[in-house]
């Protein structure tokens, strides 16, 4: 089948030693920083899974594609604006902000479409979760193939080509070291990524906990029937939740474009899988858990890749997940958006 | 089918403790749900556990059936500790229960529901059901019958009968048949055998309650715990239920009945334990309890339920 579109930082040649502690502990701070910035993307995507799961008790399998669409929408906008490599800093910031808005809108719109097409009818039927999962997988395949066959070409200004394109994205910010802490070189992009993830989470947290809409979301998460009786419009809350998840995925898409400078129709799959793992790790349904899980997963992966070979990072991620779930069945921080039921 | 427990007049004179609640205290955070509660349940009796809403009846019930672990104190069944065991182990010890909010297997037929209970007494498991190698010599009445008028079919039946005589019948098959007989018998015992093959979810409410009792009885318990079995019943249905509970006792089962309908409890129980705010405020025969001033006070606070 297809290769995976996840560019992995390689640390030297394939390990001569099976476990290379020197490589890890010689440069621990650096690996931690790399891991955190990688985890920021997981965390933002994980928020989408967590929000939907918190309210609907449903794994939105198509969320990975919502993220993927975001990367392409941002790319399309930038190429439409004629973004050149490394523009002056002022323009770069403008482009990034435009990218954020476009990515969030595109992903939000995709999320809404997914809810409308794949889930709403099933929700009315009160179908068992397995059915939702299969429609989500089906829709996910459709989105991936649409981009593989046509849309990728369209967004990169090549027309509706039938190629499984890998598309480069013009670098807006030159990745350069701006800070050195404890031997770790921190780049501007890495700072932006982690800060952006924190800011987005903070905003979301405030929205859910402080506003009227957020109260509706929490009400439905805790008891859909009671919320409905109290006059909360359930459909509207569910749409809101999907849109919020989409917005976060759009932001993650922007970070992805900045960090990796490349996108492809199937990037969603691996990122989605990791993000979902992160959400479960932190405690699905728990917003802060998603952030913690994402960052932690990023760090674990980088550590594991350094210790052994980069191909083992996925194994490490899942082993950690299983171990955590065995000892804390509701994840590190527990489920909180809806009350834990386990 | 069901084993009758030996209850003769001599035994009744010197009652044997079946379940012992010994100084059980249960705290949830700062809330004391059960406060140093002690009472005994004797073999062959019907014990009522009553109290106004929120008195801790269900909490006590859950502590007795192993759902909650007491903060201090112990629940002993047949001399063995109950708390901390897995639910299926507790069932194997001989405690069966029904649920206040009916919990049948809605997509299985009434018969299948009872069969699940009966299966707990069966020894065949996955390997036995797969390969059916464990053969048992059948009793004469368990052999396949030869009764067809059609010659060919008759020949086939003869072959099956002979092979069962020679090679025996797999334990799995015998257990399945025995289970089915028992299930039918129990369904007619509780009076719902006319709808044995209907899905549990399609049965009327009263049937569902009775089906739960049949399912619990199928596990051949030493103690049957009924959690508000009359909830949602009209007076006529309650009367029928009383009749059923008496029939169950007459078969030799020990019954623990949780209920807040005083009249129902008075009519059927041998002894009553009254709870209020997690404490035992009275214990004794129905008539004594009814005249106990503390009980009257507790129930006067809640006249609607005392009806």
């Amino acid at each position, binding site marked *: 089948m297809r290769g995976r579109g996840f560019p992995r930082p390689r640390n030297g040649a394939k390990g001569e030693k099976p476990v290379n502690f020197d490589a890890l502990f010689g440069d621990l701070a650096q690996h931690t920083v790399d891991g955190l910035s990688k985890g920021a993307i997981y965390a933002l995507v994980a928020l989408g899974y967590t929000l939907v799961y918190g309210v609907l008790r449903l794994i939105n399998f198509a969320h990975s594609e919502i993220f993927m669409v975001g990367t392409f929408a941002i790319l399309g906008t930038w190429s439409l604006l004629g973004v050149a490599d490394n523009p002056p800093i002022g323009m770069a910031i403008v482009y990034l902000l435009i990218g954020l808005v476009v990515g969030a809108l595109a992903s939000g719109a995709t999320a809404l479409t997914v809810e409308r097409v794949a889930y709403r009818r099933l929700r009315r*039927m009160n*179908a068992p979760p397995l059915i939702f999962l299969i429609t989500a997988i089906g829709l996910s*395949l459709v989105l*991936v193939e649409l981009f593989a*066959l046509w849309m990728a070409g369209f967004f990169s200004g090549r027309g509706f080509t039938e190629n499984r394109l890998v598309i480069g994205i013009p670098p807006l910010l030159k990745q350069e070291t701006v800070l050195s802490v404890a031997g770790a070189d921190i780049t501007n992009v890495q700072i932006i990524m982690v800060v952006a993830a924190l800011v987005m989470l903070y905003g979301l947290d405030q929205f859910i906990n402080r506003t009227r809409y957020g109260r509706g979301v929490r009400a439905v998460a805790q008891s859909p029937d009671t919320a409905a009786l109290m006059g909360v419009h359930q459909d509207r809350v569910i749409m809101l939740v999907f849109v919020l998840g989409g917005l976060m995925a759009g932001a993650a898409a922007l970070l992805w474009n900045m960090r990796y400078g490349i996108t492809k129709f199937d990037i969603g799959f691996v990122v989605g899988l990791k993000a979902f793992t992160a959400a479960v790790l932190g405690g699905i349904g728990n917003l802060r858990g998603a952030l913690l899980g994402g960052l932690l997963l990023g760090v674990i992966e980088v550590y594991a890749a350094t210790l052994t070979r980069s191909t083992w990072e996925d194994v490490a991620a899942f082993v950690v997940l299983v171990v955590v779930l065995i000892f804390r069945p509701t994840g590190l921080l527990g489920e909180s958006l809806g009350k834990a039921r386990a | 089918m069901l084993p009758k427990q030996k209850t003769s007049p001599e035994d009744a004179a010197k009652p044997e403790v079946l379940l012992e609640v010994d100084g059980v205290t249960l705290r949830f955070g700062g809330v004391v749900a059960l406060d140093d509660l002690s009472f005994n349940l004797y073999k062959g009796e019907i014990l009522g556990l009553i109290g106004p809403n929120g008195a801790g009846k269900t909490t006590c019930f859950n502590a007795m059936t192993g759902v909650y672990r007491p903060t201090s104190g112990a629940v002993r069944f047949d001399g063995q500790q109950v708390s901390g065991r897995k639910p299926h182990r507790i069932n194997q010890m001989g405690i069966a229960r029904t649920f206040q909010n009916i919990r049948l297997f809605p*997509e299985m037929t009434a018969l299948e529901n009872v069969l699940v209970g009966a299966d707990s007494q069966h020894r065949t*498991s*996955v390997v036995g059901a797969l390969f059916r190698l464990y053969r048992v010599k059948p009793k004469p009445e368990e052999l396949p019958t030869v009764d067809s008028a059609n010659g060919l079919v008759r020949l086939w039946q003869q072959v099956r009968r002979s092979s069962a005589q020679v090679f025996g019948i797999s334990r799995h098959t015998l257990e399945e048949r025995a289970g089915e007989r028992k299930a039918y018998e129990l369904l007619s015992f509780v009076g719902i055998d006319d709808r044995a093959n209907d899905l549990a979810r399609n049965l009327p409410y009263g049937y569902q309650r009775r089906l739960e009792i049949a399912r619990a009885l199928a*596990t051949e318990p030493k103690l049957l715990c009924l959690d508000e079995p009359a909830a949602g019943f009209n007076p006529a249905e309650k009367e029928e239920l009383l009749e059923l509970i008496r029939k169950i006792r007459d078969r030799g089962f020990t019954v623990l009945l949780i209920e807040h309908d005083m009249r129902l409890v008075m009519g059927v129980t041998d002894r009553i334990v009254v709870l209020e705010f997690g404490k035992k405020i009275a214990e004794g025969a129905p008539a004594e309890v009814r005249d106990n001033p503390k009980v009257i006070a507790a129930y006067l606070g809640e006249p609607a339920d005392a009806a």
Partner: protein
Amino acid sequence: MTEALRQINERRRHVLGGMGDRWRALPRWQRWLTLLAGVAFLYYLPFLGDIPGTNLIIPGLDWFRTDSIDGGANWAGVLFVCALYVLVAVGLNVVIGLAGLLDLGYVGFYAVGAYSVALFGSAESPVVGALQEQFGLSSDWAIAWAICIPIALAFSLVAGVLLGWPTLRLRGDYLAIVTLGFGEIIRIVAKNSGWAGEAQGVPGIPGPEGPPSPDNKVFGLLDIKPWYWLALSVVLVMVLLVRRLEHSRVGRSWLAIREDEDAAAVMGVYPFKFKLWAFAIGAALGGFSGLLFASRSAFIQPETFNVQLSILFVAMVVVGGSGNMAGVAVGAFLLAYLPERFRDFSEYRVLAFGLALVLIMLLRPQGLLPSRRRTRELQDRAKEPANVA
């Protein structure tokens, strides 16, 4: 558009539902005869359109063959894959349909079965190589195929238990992600371990007649019909065995657990034990299927056993009708057959597959041939007033 589709679907539902009831109403001997005829037809399938031993061709039937189109795949080969997938679906149905456990990493067991026969049966595998060296055996020594079968079954069974032991206590959704991870781990381990042949895979995997060679008389490289018959026979035996379980205390316990785990436990069913059995049995069937796949291919690579395959497996079960063995078999057959038959559109295969999944689930959530229970379940659920005001 949707309305029209719904009407068509409504009509078909009547036809199909009616068929099921009529089938059950038939006398027992008639059902047996029909089943026998059906089985005979399955064995005849590789000749579809021909009459064996003559040059006669039955017109029309030819259209169904995948080699009747330009560049189409060998028909018997496609049937063989269909049989493998049916075996997988029967096994996965035990896990998903009967016990109600969502396993998204089923490909892991398929891989364990395939790698068992590859690593122990192939003279060229690193494991056999190490054994040869250790005991001074000749360079073409390897463990016989027939002995590899119990080895593969044991390994996949153990894999099922090892995965199930820590994870079956988890709630359903967590189980999904953990099993998904398990499937990936098996693939990654195979890909990165010297003893498993790394990314190059393992060649020279034996079949019933030993290692692949042009001299093999029955299970050769070109004529795949015997392979199909072998797989079909395995499927039939396994279906019979699983049926025995389904209609026994074990099947009842699975259903009870699926319906209400706590209530089942209180009735003396130990949920963990029966869930673990479901997992192990499902794993063994998946492993058997993987073994047949590896034997026929004579060569396996880790990349074959990817998540997409796992998802395909789950889709077969759900589309066919989770819980009903005939249903999942039909689902497996269709999902294996249709993409091959419509190879002309191969570029749009995945797209069509995705669309089909969405449409089938939206219009017929209980699957094409649902179990009776599932149909009623869904109809009743739909009748219940929606929570939404």
